[in-house]
């Protein structure tokens, strides 16, 4: 009987071998795939297993973590002033994953990032509980508050940048949501989430970064910069050769002017009263290629990462002459995020040098050691210093003499430049227009803040009042004052 016995022994050995091979397949080859599988709750469990690090503004945390004693997800995220900060923080939900800073810097916040390996190992030996690191933002609490309060219950967004460095100072979007309302995974959280998902006002949309609007007249700043930069205009006070009415190229449709005195108006005058004809004609003369070139130097046609992704603003690269002329006054296919317009204002304010916008100042380890600092970085130079200063002159003229009067801050030694915009949209421009305002404040030591404000359809406001100067400029002023007063 020994011969078959030996064979059976080999057979049993093969059974064990098959198990060993299968286990290697499962735990070595497929380990990563299974470990990060979307059905695998371990990722989320790990995210909330330890006290999560905080997101910090002005040295104070705007987030928190409570020990919920839940056997699955132990710590739950809390937010101070959740709706105000939601466009910055995003959310960290036990049931619905995470977004924005909470998602991008999840590794630091949970303490699982490779850069925190040393801290983790040390904590293992000292027996301390693992905690997450902090994310220090560039935001300015006062400016954010001013922006959020200014928008109030209107739909809109505000983006404010420090032109010298590119630090984002305010990023507000309304209507907003409270990320605390669905931070857990209970039925209540689900209800809150579903309600937000189904809300026609889309409160979860980060309008400052993720929505593109027709810019209307605020885009004229870009056209002015392009005209100066490409030598189309050298003297801003010289009369231009602009007929009244001016017909859009390739069509017999006249370009309407809402303002008086646009015939042959100088560039300075045209920006002051916001002449469509002058800028449409200038954009046509500069030509599509060069308009695209300047717009792209300002950041159009590319996604921006701050490091949260902002969608690409659009300046059409393939349209015909008529489209280009209309685009030059911010109509046709032109569409932009509020952040993009803030970048335009910032480039002007910073004498033509556009700094890459960013909102994460530094990452800290649980022990508050700095893991990584973001250094200001030059993104491009859309115009020369000389031309930038000419545009500044014109924008400051808009505030002191033109449509942007309500943006003037009452601070000695501070000059304010701005541009209003009232963008029409909808079929036959039937929908209520968007009110835009972009501006910057400037002191002797350079510009501390550039801001873009958009207010969407405001029900209950008379249509004539919906102009950038009336609705958006006061918000921009409050934000600028907040930044100036915070002494930076």
């Amino acid at each position: 009987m020994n011969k078959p016995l030996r064979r059976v022994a080999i057979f049993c050995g093969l059974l064990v071998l098959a198990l060993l091979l299968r286990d290697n397949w499962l735990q070595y080859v497929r380990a990563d795939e299974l470990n990060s599988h979307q059905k695998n709750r371990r990722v989320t469990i790990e995210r909330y297993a330890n006290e999560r690090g905080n997101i910090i503004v002005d040295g104070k945390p705007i987030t928190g973590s409570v020990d919920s004693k839940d056997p699955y997800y132990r710590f739950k995220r809390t937010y101070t002033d959740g709706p105000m900060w939601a466009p910055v923080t995003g959310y960290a939900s036990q049931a619905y994953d995470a977004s924005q800073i909470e998602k991008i810097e999840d590794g630091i916040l949970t303490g699982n990032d490779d850069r925190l390996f040393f801290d983790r190992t040390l904590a293992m030996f000292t027996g301390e509980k693992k905690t997450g690191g902090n994310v220090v933002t560039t935001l300015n609490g006062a400016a954010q508050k001013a922006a959020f309060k200014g928008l109030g219950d209107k739909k809109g967004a505000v983006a404010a940048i420090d032109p010298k460095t590119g630090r984002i100072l305010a990023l507000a979007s309304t209507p907003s949501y409270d990320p605390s309302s669905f931070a857990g995974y209970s039925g209540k959280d689900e209800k809150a989430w579903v309600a937000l998902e189904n809300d026609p006002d889309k409160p979860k949309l980060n309008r400052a970064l993720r929505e593109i609007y027709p810019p209307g007249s605020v885009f004229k700043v870009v056209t002015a910069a392009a005209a100066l930069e490409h030598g189309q205009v050298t003297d801003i006070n010289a009369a231009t050769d602009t007929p009244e009415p001016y017909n859009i190229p390739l069509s017999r449709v006249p370009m309407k002017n809402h303002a008086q005195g646009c015939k042959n108006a100088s560039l300075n005058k045209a920006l002051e009263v916001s002449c469509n004809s002058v800028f449409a004609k200038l954009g046509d003369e500069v030509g599509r290629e060069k308009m695209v070139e300047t717009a792209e130097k300002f950041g159009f046609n590319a996604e921006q990462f701050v490091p949260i992704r902002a969608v690409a603003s659009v300046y059409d690269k393939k349209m015909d002459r008529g489209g280009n002329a209309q685009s030059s006054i911010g109509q046709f296919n032109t569409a932009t995020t509020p952040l993009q317009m803030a970048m335009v204002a910032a480039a002007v304010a910073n004498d033509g040098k556009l700094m890459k916008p960013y909102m994460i100042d530094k990452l800290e380890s649980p022990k508050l050691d700095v893991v990584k600092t973001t250094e200001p970085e030059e993104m491009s130079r859309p115009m020369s210093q000389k031309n930038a200063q000419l545009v500044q002159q014109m924008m400051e003229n808009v505030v002191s003499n033109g449509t942007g009067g309500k943006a003037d801050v009452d601070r000695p030694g501070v000059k304010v430049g701005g541009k209003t915009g009232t963008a029409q949209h909808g079929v036959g421009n039937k929908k209520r227009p968007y009110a835009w305002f972009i501006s910057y404040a400037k002191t002797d030591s350079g510009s501390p803040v550039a801001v873009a404000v958009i207010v969407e359809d405001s029900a209950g406001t008379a249509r004539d009042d919906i102009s950038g100067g009336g609705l958006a400029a006061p918000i921009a002023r409050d934000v600028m004052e907040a930044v100036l007063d915070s002494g930076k």
Partner: protein
Amino acid sequence: MSVVTNTTTIGAIELPSRRNTELLLLGFAVVIPVFAYLNVGLAIDGKVPPGMLGYGLGLGLLAGVAHLVVRKFAKYADPLLLPLATLLNGLGLVLIWRLDQSPRIIARYKTFSPDAPNQLMYSAIGVALFLLVLMFLKDHRVLQRFTYISMMVAIVLLLLPLVPGLGADVFGAKIWIRIGPFSIQPGEFAKIVIAVFFSGYLMVKRDALALASRRFLGLYLPRGRDLGPILTIWAVSLLILVFENDLGTSLLFFGMFVIMLYVATERTSWIVMGLLMAVGGAVVVGSFATHVQSRVAAWLDPFECLKTAPERSNMAAACDQMTQVLMSFGSGGVLGTGLGQGNSDLIGFAANSDFIFATVGEELGLTGVMAFLLMYGLIIERGIRTSLAARDPFGKLLAMGLSGAFALQIFVVAGGVMGLIPLTGMTMPFLAYGGSSVIANWALIAILIRISDTARRPAPAPAPSPDAEMTQVVRP
């Protein structure tokens, strides 16, 4: 020049009994689980678990008594079997205790009672049975007398779960009976009893089964009347599969019978026939038993099946369970998360019994699982070695049957939880929570030890013959 002056007698060199080797290994088998216990306590509470001393002493005491009894009653027994069983049982206790600490599992039950103390009690009963077998079964050949009684007992045990009022349906499989507060899995005991029956039966009939056959297509086909037993076993296996919904038990019994038949008759034709019958039966049953179908679906692609299975159906439950188990293994990776630090308690059902191997996978990683598989492999190897060394055909067959059944069980259970084959409702011997399993497997180890002792025991010295004495003495 020296002259040999003394007289030298060349006697039989006494075989080493290997009892000291066993004692040394037992030391490891006790110390390793104690450290594992400490490890879990430190990982979960950050302090030395209060029960550690008691646990260590308890395990040490069980192992010590078992060792002394083996030393006394089975002096030449295989030195590896007892330490391996002790180590697996000890680690199993640690894993069950670890899952008892899980707040998720505690939260899942209205009244939660820890399983580890029960398992410790079952282990003690198991070791007691082990001792009783060694003390009272002085020679395994005694079992031969009970061949046909064994058959009756085995059939009764296997069919007990089908008795109304006695059998209990646990998650689809009817392999339990409930007596008062106790749940018993009779299949675990039947495994041993039926091995006794097969051995006794085949030892007697093997010549008939091997020789009286016709040659057909290069295979020796048995006579029709000799097909009776294999057909009966096949039918009983299918009955188990259909009525008790248990693929594992059914596969185990049929596989064991085919292996023993092959070993007894040395005829490959039995294996061919057995395989054909197994495949045929599986296909037929699989085509109409929904329970089997959902297990197969969960095996083929659990993640896909989770999407397509109707909600709250048995199939969805089976697939969800399988995905949880696979993710548990995957999350362990090569080195595992460390004892007490994994999330294998996400497996909603039977985490400490059917799926305890997933906890090994997650917390001890690929390394730990391979170590466990090799330990089981070693038990199988020692069992087959015992069978090879046994001097009598009954002992050979019995040892082979028991180790073959053990091997099949490991393959079916570990292969099932790792997704190699469809999942079945059996448990890892010694590791999983369950009294029947622990007690029956201790008895199985006891029988193997008894056979190995008989096999290795030196033959009694032949009676001294005065003539022989003279010729062997060299006188100067």
